[in-house]
């Protein structure tokens, strides 16, 4: 019962937050120079002031700000994100076409960064004075300091051009024919470099944090108790220490998920990955307001869901969180 109540409470908060995001996004786009009328006029090859005014009346752009805002929120509530005049497609359709690619990239990169980061952190905490520890530290700092697009291009030059192991761009190869498994393998092949690029930044964060958390936990009294019980090093490290070192890492991973999504925008541009990031870039350049708003809305949604999942994972790991949620 308890968990259901907590979840319900969190969902209500999420709805309020999402509404706030909607209002903020719409206001910012509204007060920024340029609107859909410009886009349409541009696609017609120019228009005079009279035609522009006519277009604005047609699309309700002459209405007062609040009328437009409430009309927009009403449409979103009925799952209508508007129509893209640039792509000539409903925004929802446009986004659902691209969202899976972005989620696939972002979630894979996040999971890889967390898992490998924690493993590296645990390893270097176990051997704080070893050579491997310095290697991990340098590697992590390098990944964190290097700009994403630079890492991406470097990987492309290295592993697509000099040593042609991976494809240069795209998500799949149209010449590949076959069943689900063959296609999945093809996508996985295309994913390797983008995922490595995106996770390299976050890998550094997670490995540094889990190293620090592990070092602290390994010095605690209950670890001494675990050793005094005669448990093996493996049990002491992986069972008793790791579970206590995870909460800060999980918290950071939840907070960083939005950064992973925005990092995906850059990575998608470098690797021509057909995801939301590319769509966002094009629609911003084209002043395609409905599409931009739609993408912002979905990004907010994904981040909120990410945080909800973080909270659930925290409850799973630490019984003390369950006590007073």
């Amino acid at each position: 019962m308890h968990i259901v109540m907590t979840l319900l409470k969190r969902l209500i908060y999420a709805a309020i937050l999402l509404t706030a995001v909607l209002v903020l996004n719409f206001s910012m786009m509204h007060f920024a120079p340029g609107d859909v009328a410009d886009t349409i006029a541009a696609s017609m090859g120019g228009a005079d002031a009279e035609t522009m005014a006519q277009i604005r009346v047609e699309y309700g752009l002459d209405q007062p700000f609040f009328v437009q805002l409430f009309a927009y929120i009403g449409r979103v509530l009925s799952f209508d994100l508007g129509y893209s005049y640039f792509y000539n497609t409903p925004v929802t359709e446009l986004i659902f076409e691209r969202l899976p690619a972005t989620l696939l990239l972002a979630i894979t990169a996040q999971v890889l960064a967390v898992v490998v980061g924690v493993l590296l952190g645990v390893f270097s905490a176990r051997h704080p004075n070893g050579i491997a520890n310095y290697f991990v530290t340098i590697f992590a700092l390098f990944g964190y300091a290097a700009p994403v697009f630079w890492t991406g291009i470097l990987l492309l030059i290295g592993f697509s051009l000099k040593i042609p192991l991976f494809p240069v761009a795209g998500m799949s190869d149209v010449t590949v024919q076959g069943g689900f498994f063959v296609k999945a393998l093809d996508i996985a092949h295309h994913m390797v470099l983008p995922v490595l690029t995106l996770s390299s930044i976050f890998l550094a964060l997670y490995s540094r944090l889990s190293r620090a958390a592990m070092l602290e936990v390994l010095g605690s009294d209950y670890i001494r108790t675990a050793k005094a019980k005669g448990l093996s090093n493996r049990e002491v490290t992986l069972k008793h220490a790791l579970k206590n070192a995870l909460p800060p890492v999980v918290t950071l991973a939840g907070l960083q998920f939005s950064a992973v999504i925005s990092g995906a925008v850059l990575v998608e541009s470098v690797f021509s990955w057909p995801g939301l990031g590319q769509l966002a870039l094009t629609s911003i350049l084209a002043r395609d307001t409905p599409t931009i708003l739609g993408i912002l809305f979905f990004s907010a949604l994904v981040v909120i869901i990410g945080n909800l999942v973080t909270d659930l994972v925290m409850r799973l790991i630490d019984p003390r969180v369950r006590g007073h949620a």
Partner: protein
Amino acid sequence: MTEPLLKIENLRIELALRSGQAPVIDDLSLELNAGETLSFVGESGCGKSMTALAIMGLLPEKVGSIASGRILFDGRDMAQMNDTELRAIRGNEISMIFQEPMTSLNPVYTVGEQIAEVLRRHKGMNKRDAWARAIELLDAVRIPNAKSRVSAYPHQMSGGQRQRVMIAIALACEPKILIADEPTTALDVTVQAQIFDLLRDLGRDTGTAVILITHDMGAVAEMADRMVVMYAGRKAEYGPVSPVINHPRHPYTKGLISCVPHLLAELTEERPDLTEVPGIVPALASFGTDACLFASRCDLADDKCRSQRPPEVAFGDQHSACWKADQI
């Protein structure tokens, strides 16, 4: 005479300091017989806990190490054992409870799991049997409603209850030796008495020998058969509890005893003044010097005390490492 259960011979433990190696335990020898309670007494930093950790093979890595001497348990030298051999003894034949019950249990596992884990590790029990035994053990350490408390997490228990859980973990495999390192320091007075009662009763029932590390002289008098008074990593005095307390042969022991306030029957009766041991323990770096380390704090000290380490003098079963032992 039967062989003692645990025999420590000329143990020397060194700590790595910036200035070099310093002995925190210097030439310590003692014996522990099966079923008896031996108490270590002394102020903070005198090496009581170090000795306990050395017996467990849990000296802080790369900082503390056994430089020489032997720790004979059942005839085998634990100082020479590798980690695998030590792990088979730890928590099984020799177990330990610590000073800080609030932080000694792992916060993310149930107390039942933390007890059952030792049973699975050392007794090869399966999950269900170990869990059932964990409930019996919680009951044995007098935790009410053990059947439901077994699935509680440490944060749902009080300090006294957590220390009881620690005792349950320590006694789960019916060890031959239980080391209790200031088990009641962090608890309030009424709970202290309960924990001591529990330790004494369980020790008697299972025939477990207890090494009780404490600075509570009252607890020593009540619990222990023999006591070792330690000062600056050396044995100052040792022997059966009643002669040592009634007629100490070392000025340090005498000082410790006179620090303890006495309850008097009549509130109006004149109380003897409480004294203190003046000065502080010498710096760790000087622990190795050939002199009586207590000399700087001792009224009786003369040039001999400051230039030569005193040998142990026997008065029956009572031994004192003091040049002036016969004058006290």
